[in-house]
Structures are given as structure tokens and as C-alpha cells.
């Protein structure tokens, strides 16, 4: 398959690729900057060596991503940027450097492994290099997206650039991107698979799609961001952000579509959003191994339709996704019931938890909790006493005679993303393990119910 990235085939060099509050970046300017980024990496002797991209701003991210790929560097995108994760990556990938903005450089000033992504304006001051950077069909560098593994160590899923381009075609088809320019505003970061496919690869692969460089957060930010782009607005977000946006009462300009992923979207929320903004809400079902693999219009349909080039296979009660572009069948940990063209999502697999768009293995979290010096035994538990539109949060149950909630939280903060920090730490004299050492959901529920009754919950 040939790569058709827009840099190679741009027939509309003046179309916009990235928008920001102050400025916009055209296809041509972007290509110029990304090529010079590659030249710079080469000049620093960092070509053909792996890179971690730590910036959130999408202009910087895209320049770093494209520049790295052009310079033959594999790109690594970790789940989070805690010292724990970065340390593991440095052990596994020799010659690794981290591409970051000036804040990142300041924070790591004596560490030469942290390399500045120059401002695009500075990169285009120098003339654009010609060959050998023109033929991108030969691009062989890969992109690896990481998820948290069950042992607490990040696990990488390596993908070729061409598989992302194919994925982007499926995205564009599903979102009915025609010949008219469409503009993306995304509330999700570019590092994770969902944000990467939707807000980075889609504009890179399709020359009439642009993206706003920021990651709007508050409802007022999202409205302002959408106001900045002219028409055919696509809002890429999560169910949590969508529910906050609905409740805030912010008036949004007309939308072409709202895209949701990372946590199950309820039909009720989808219907409310469709009625309120008169735009289809498309829910994406995906995984870090495959990217988007199925979609549904949640307001109207319960079943997800599978991407046309993928197949769902059920082997020994486990679901696998197969397809020409996948090296091997991908196990889906969630509980799915197959339908004629896809599946119904019945629930999450036991080990996978997802909070506000970030996923983590529960056993991985438990492994990290038990690394804390003060913790003799410990387990994370998802709170389930919340109302349906609230974000689920974690609690930790620990046996830690000398530890304090503060010392345990301080330890965890260096190892895991803040979203997964326990909301509450419950100290117990022992965990309800059975004779084989296992903790069943039932014994855990019993313990929690008992604690609630006796009101001895300490926080």
C-alpha cells in the first residue's frame, strides 16, 4: 500500500492544516517546518533514534511527529509522563530522547536527552530542504502507542505509518468528510490512540481537514475554540466532557458531528446532545492495538458496526479482531455479543478500567500500589455508588501499619497518572483474601459494605 500523506500529494498547498488563536498553518508551511525539524534532528546526530513526544500543543506535536518520522526515528507515545514510565522507556529503548517545549527543557535543564521542538516560525526561517525528504512512500519509521500492562510496566503497540493512514481513511468515511474543508476541535490529548487518530492522523492524511492546536478544557474554552473555526466543525471529545458541556448550558455554533470515545456513552446522553446541538453523535469503539475498530450512532443504535476491513472472531469465549492490516489477531478484553455487522458492547473486561478517557490495567495499578514501601498488601477498587453521569473514581484498600494516606499518595503520584490516584485510602488490618490468596469481587463488596455500616472508614 502506498502512503498518501498530504505532504507528498498536497494539491491544495494553501489549505489550512493547524489553526491557533493567533495564526493558521497551511499545508505548505507545515511541510516546510516538519522537513526542517528532520534536518535539525539529523544535525544533532539524533536521526534514526527513538523519540518520545511530550508536548500537548498540536502544532508542536505534529511538527515533532512528522520531523521524527522523516529523520527515520521511531516515535513512542507513552500513556503518561510520570518518572516511572519514562524510566521504563529509557531502559527498553537505547538512544532515546524526549521532544518537548521550553517548559520541558527548563524542568530537565541538565539532561541533554530532552530536546526542544523549535517554534514553527523559527523552523520556516531556513529554506526548505529538497530531496531526500520528498518521497514519503518509503517512510519506514513506526509509531508505538503504550498502554499500562498488567504488571505495572508500560506495554507498547507498534504500528506502521501506513496503517494509520488506512485508519484515517475509515475515520474520514465514517464522519462523511467530503470535499469541503472540515475543522477539528479536540478535548483529548494527542498522545493517546483516540486523540492521535482523530486529531493528528486525520489532518495529516486528509488535506482538507484542519485541527485546532489547543486542548480546550472548560465548557467556555470549548465554545471559544469552536467559534474560532469557520464551518463543518467536528468536536472530538469524551462522554464525561460531553455531559459537563450539556449541563453548562453553553451555546455552541453549528456542528457537523460530535465524536465520543474512551468510555461507554449512554443512549440518554447521546440523545440529549443530538437534540441540543442538532448534530449526529458518533461513538467510537477502539483499542490501542487497533485504533478505531467499530462505530455507532448511539442515539439510534445499540450495536456497533465493525470497520469494513476487520472481522470479529470468538474463540474459546474470547473475542479477537482480525484483519489484513493487523499482524496478529488482537484480543479484546471487553465482553461483546456479535451481531450481523458488528457487536453489542456488554461490559468492560475485569481488568480494564477507564477514567475520563484514560485506560489502565487494574492489576497493573495493584502491582504499583504494592511497590510502595509502607504498603504490605493493597488493592484498588472502582467506586460504584455514584450516579450514572458522574465520573467513576478509585479507592485503595491497604494494609499499611506505618504508612499514611499522604505518604502512599505521594509515592503513587510518581508512578501513575493523577487521574488514577485513589480518591480515598482505606486502612485495613488485612485484605479479604480467600484460602488461595485471591480477593473475589464478592468478598471485597462485603468488606466495603461492612465498613460502611460500622462507619469506620478513614480517609
Amino acid at each position: 500500500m502506498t502512503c498518501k500523506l498530504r505532504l507528498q500529494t498536497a494539491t491544495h498547498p494553501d489549505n489550512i492544516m493547524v489553526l491557533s488563536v493567533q495564526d493558521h498553518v497551511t499545508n505548505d508551511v507545515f511541510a516546510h517546518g516538519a522537513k526542517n525539524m528532520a534536518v535539525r534532528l539529523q544535525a544533532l546526530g539524533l536521526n534514526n533514534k527513538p523519540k518520545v513526544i511530550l508536548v500537548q500543543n498540536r502544532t508542536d506535536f505534529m511538527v515533532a511527529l512528522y520531523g521524527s518520522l522523516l529523520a527515520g526515528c521511531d516515535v513512542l507515545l507513552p500513556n503518561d509522563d510520570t518518572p516511572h514510565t519514562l524510566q521504563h522507556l529509557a531502559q527498553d529503548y537505547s538512544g532515546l530522547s524526549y521532544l518537548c517545549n521550553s517548559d520541558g527543557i527548563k524542568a530537565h535543564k541538565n539532561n541533554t536527552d530532552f530536546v526542544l521542538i523549535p517554534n514553527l516560525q523559527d523552523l520556516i526561517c531556513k529554506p526548505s530542504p529538497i530531496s531526500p525528504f520528498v518521497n514519503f512512500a518509503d517512510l519506514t519509521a513506526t509509531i508505538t502507542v503504550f498502554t499500562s500492562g498488567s504488571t505495572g510496566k508500560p506495554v507498547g503497540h507498534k504500528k506502521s505509518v501506513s496503517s494509520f493512514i488506512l485508519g484515517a481513511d475509515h475515520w474520514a468515511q465514517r464522519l462523511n468528510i467530503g470535499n469541503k474543508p472540515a475543522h477539528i476541535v479536540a478535548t483529548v490529548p494527542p498522545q493517546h490512540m483516540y486523540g492521535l487518530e482523530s486529531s493528528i492522523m486525520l489532518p495529516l492524511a486528509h488535506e482538507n481537514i484542519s485541527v485546532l492546536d489547543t486542548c480546550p478544557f472548560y465548557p467556555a474554552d470549548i465554545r471559544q475554540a469552536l467559534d474560532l473555526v469557520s464551518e463543518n466543525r467536528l468536536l472530538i471529545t469524551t462522554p464525561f466532557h460531553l455531559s459537563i458541556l450539556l449541563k453548562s448550558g453553553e451555546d455552541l455554533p453549528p456542528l457537523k458531528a460530535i465524536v465520543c470515545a474512551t468510555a461507554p456513552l449512554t443512549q440518554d446522553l447521546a440523545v440529549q446532545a443530538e437534540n441540543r446541538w442538532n448534530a449526529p453523535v458518533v461513538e467510537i469503539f477502539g483499542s490501542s492495538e487497533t485504533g478505531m475498530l467499530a462505530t455507532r450512532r448511539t442515539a439510534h443504535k445499540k450495536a456497533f458496526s465493525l470497520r469494513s476491513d476487520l472481522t470479529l472472531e470468538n474463540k474459546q469465549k474470547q473475542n479477537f479482531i482480525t484483519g489484513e492490516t493487523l499482524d496478529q489477531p488482537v484480543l479484546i478484553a471487553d465482553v461483546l455479543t456479535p451481531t450481523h455487522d458488528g457487536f453489542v458492547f456488554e461490559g468492560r473486561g475485569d481488568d480494564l478500567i477507564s477514567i475520563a478517557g484514560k485506560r489502565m490495567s487494574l492489576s497493573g495499578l495493584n502491582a504499583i500500589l504494592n511497590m510502595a514501601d509502607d504498603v504490605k498488601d493493597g488493592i484498588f477498587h472502582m467506586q460504584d455508588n455514584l450516579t450514572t453521569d458522574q465520573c467513576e473514581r478509585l479507592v485503595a484498600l491497604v494494609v499499611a501499619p506505618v504508612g499514611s494516606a499522604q505518604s502512599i499518595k505521594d509515592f503513587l503520584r510518581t508512578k501513575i497518572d493523577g487521574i488514577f490516584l485513589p480518591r480515598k485510602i482505606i486502612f485495613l488490618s488485612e485484605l479479604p483474601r480467600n484460602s488461595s490468596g485471591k480477593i473475589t469481587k464478592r468478598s471485597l463488596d462485603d468488606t466495603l459494605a461492612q465498613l460502611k455500616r460500622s462507619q469506620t472508614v478513614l480517609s
Partner: protein
Amino acid sequence: MRHICQYFILLVIRTLKLLHTPDFQKEIAELIVESLNLEIEANTIAPDTPLFYEGLGLDSIDALELSLAISQRYGMTLSSDDPDNETIFASLASLAETIHQRKTT
């Protein structure tokens, strides 16, 4: 003379502010506990404890939920380009003061 007058006026304003402060802080502490479903008593949040990361340990999800509760109750909208952002969420006292100054309902 003019300076002395200004000074006294400021002093009066500050005293008035101090008088209402504990009640309003209590109201905001209750809003935090209620809207974020925290299992602590509102009166245990010290006025100068940091709300995020250390201290109360709130995170970005809480920031969104809290901003919604604030805008619904007090009509004060938060946005990322707000110059006061660094101080708004610094502590209960600064949050209460900002809301008190900017509330519209």
C-alpha cells in the same frame, strides 16, 4: 489627606470582607464536598489548604465538575485564558474570595 481617606476606605472594605468571609468560605466548602461527592466534612477543609494535587488532592476531573457547580450556583464562568486561574483554585480562601467578587447571581 486624600491618601489617608483612601487608606481608611480600603480598611473599611477589608474589614467588611473579613466579616462575611467565614460564612461564605463555609458555603464554598460545602459546595466542594457536595459537588465532588467527597467523603469528608466541609468544616475540615482549612482555608489555606491547597485544593489540587497536594492538600485536598483534587484533579482535572474535579476542576471540571467544580467549575460546573460554580457556574450553576453563582453564574461565574471559568475559562483557561482567565488571568486569575493560578490563584482561583489555590485554596478554599482564594476560591471563595474570587467567587464572591465575580458572582452574578
